[in-house]
């Protein structure tokens, strides 16, 4: 049990008592081979994944681009149809012109309602007034609040 008597004795044991011999050939080749094989294997896997990523990633991108192009075409068609319908409606009754505006306000109203609900949940009572809603200016490292919420949601199971 001279191994526990300090580093000098450990080295002495290794070199003088012949332990170095048991390390010299097969055992050292296990260490060398092991490290080299593990690194080579994982390097091969890196290359394979990069190859798969470049082939199937670009295929995926092409498919996405095609989908986006299709969606754009469909949107253009819908817009054209809407324009026609709006023109027809304008001719029929000029009041209908204001119709798209409430949609935009309804969106903003939804956001304000969500913010109000969040504030209510945090405070626990309804004695507050929201005077204005401004987008927060984050520092350079700050994340978008939605991204932050998504990330917290994804990492919570771990």
């Amino acid at each position, binding site marked *: *049990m001279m*191994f526990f008597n300090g580093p000098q004795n*450990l080295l002495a044991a*290794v070199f003088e008592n012949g*332990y170095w011999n*048991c*390390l010299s050939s*097969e*055992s050292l*080749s*296990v*260490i060398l*081979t*092991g*490290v080299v*094989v*593990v*690194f080579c*294997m*994982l*390097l*091969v*896997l*890196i290359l*394979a*994944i*990069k190859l*798969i*990523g470049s082939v*199937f*990633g670009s*295929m*995926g991108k092409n498919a996405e681009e095609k989908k986006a192009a299709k969606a754009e075409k469909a949107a253009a068609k819908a817009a054209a149809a809407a324009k026609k319908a709006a023109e027809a409606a304008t001719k029929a009754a000029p009041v209908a012109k204001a119709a798209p505006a409430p949609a935009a306000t309804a969106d903003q109203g939804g956001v304000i309602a969500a913010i109000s609900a969040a504030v209510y949940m945090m405070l626990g009572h309804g004695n507050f007034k929201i005077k204005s809603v401004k987008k927060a200016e984050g520092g350079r*490292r*700050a*994340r978008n609040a939605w991204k*932050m919420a998504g*990330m917290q949601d*994804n*990492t919570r199971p*771990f």
Partner: protein
Amino acid sequence: MEVLQSFWEALCTILANSGFGVAQWQNYVMIAISCLLLYLAIVKKFEPLLLLPIAFGMLLANIPSADAADMVYHPELWEMLVDETGHRYIDYGRVLKEGGLLDILYMGVKLGIYPPLIFLGIGAMTDFGPLIARPSSFILGAAAQIGIFGAFFLALLAGQDAASAGSIGIIGGADGPTAIYVTKTLKPELLGPIAVAAYSYMALIPIIQPPFMRLLTTKKERSVVMGQLRSVSKTEKVIFPIAVTIIVCMLVPAATPLVGMLMLGNLMKESGVTERITKTAQNELMNIITIFLGLSVGATTNGQTFLTWNTIIIVLVGLGAFILGTCFGILFGKVMYVFSGGKINPLIGSAGVSAVPMAARVSQKVGQEENPSNYLLMHAMGPNVAGVIGSAVAAGVLLTMIGH
């Protein structure tokens, strides 16, 4: 008076035949250790899913009885026999005939059935997306495996033979099933201490790793916020397990049971066409095997065979292996930090040891201590799952070079 006399004799006989009558000091020490582990699992919540069954198995195996038939585990049944040709074997017929409950469950460990099934469940639960998105994570997974071979070297210095050194070294992979799989082939006699050391260190990762992570990194490095990973297509996720199986199993066939099952589980998950069996692999099968494995591993810690100097050497060198793996992972993380122009946080290197997801969780925790808005978890999952593959490959190398 005669009635009282026989009553007293009966009491004495019951006491003499009870566990209290035949227990030796080693049994009491192991019972105390099992209670400590139960405390850590229940109160401190250190990986309770693993630690609780292991600790209870330890408790059950150390409750002796005067009548061997009453015991749940019999170490003597697992002693290796030698036939006339010098071949070493275990008499499984005798185990089936005379074994207790935990002997029967332990057959799954000895025959190498549980570890690959655990890998099937891990594969079905793992998202390799972060690794596919940043393949360079494989380097960190490989770096952490140097700990295995470093500990192999240390074990040889401590006077162990190559088979024992390989079994001890694999503790550095921080992967319980892999450690069991390698040890049952290389040195079955050491299965108990090695499995307990491997699982205990996995449970104690939140205590062992952070001091070395802080020691080897600067505040600036720990504060690095890493960029968002690219999105990975479903096709890539489906092809990944097939490609890894073909490449790894062709090059290191000894790793096939572990890597093959890991990738099968992952393919089941990513293909999206086997929802029922995927759920079974993730939940019921995984839970059942965890109970069986934990209990039977705990049962191997019978005081008389467990409390030896060899166990202390295994525990110390195993700890060294674990620390070496962590340190090499972080050092390679620092190299990647330099080469990436400061975009990679070296803390994710410590997750290269394959304890999923505990090691990644520790990277996240230490990173958040410097910058509370920093989320390293998904970035650390890349090296973490790469470590699982890396340790399986390292196991394959050890089995090929020492086991055959």
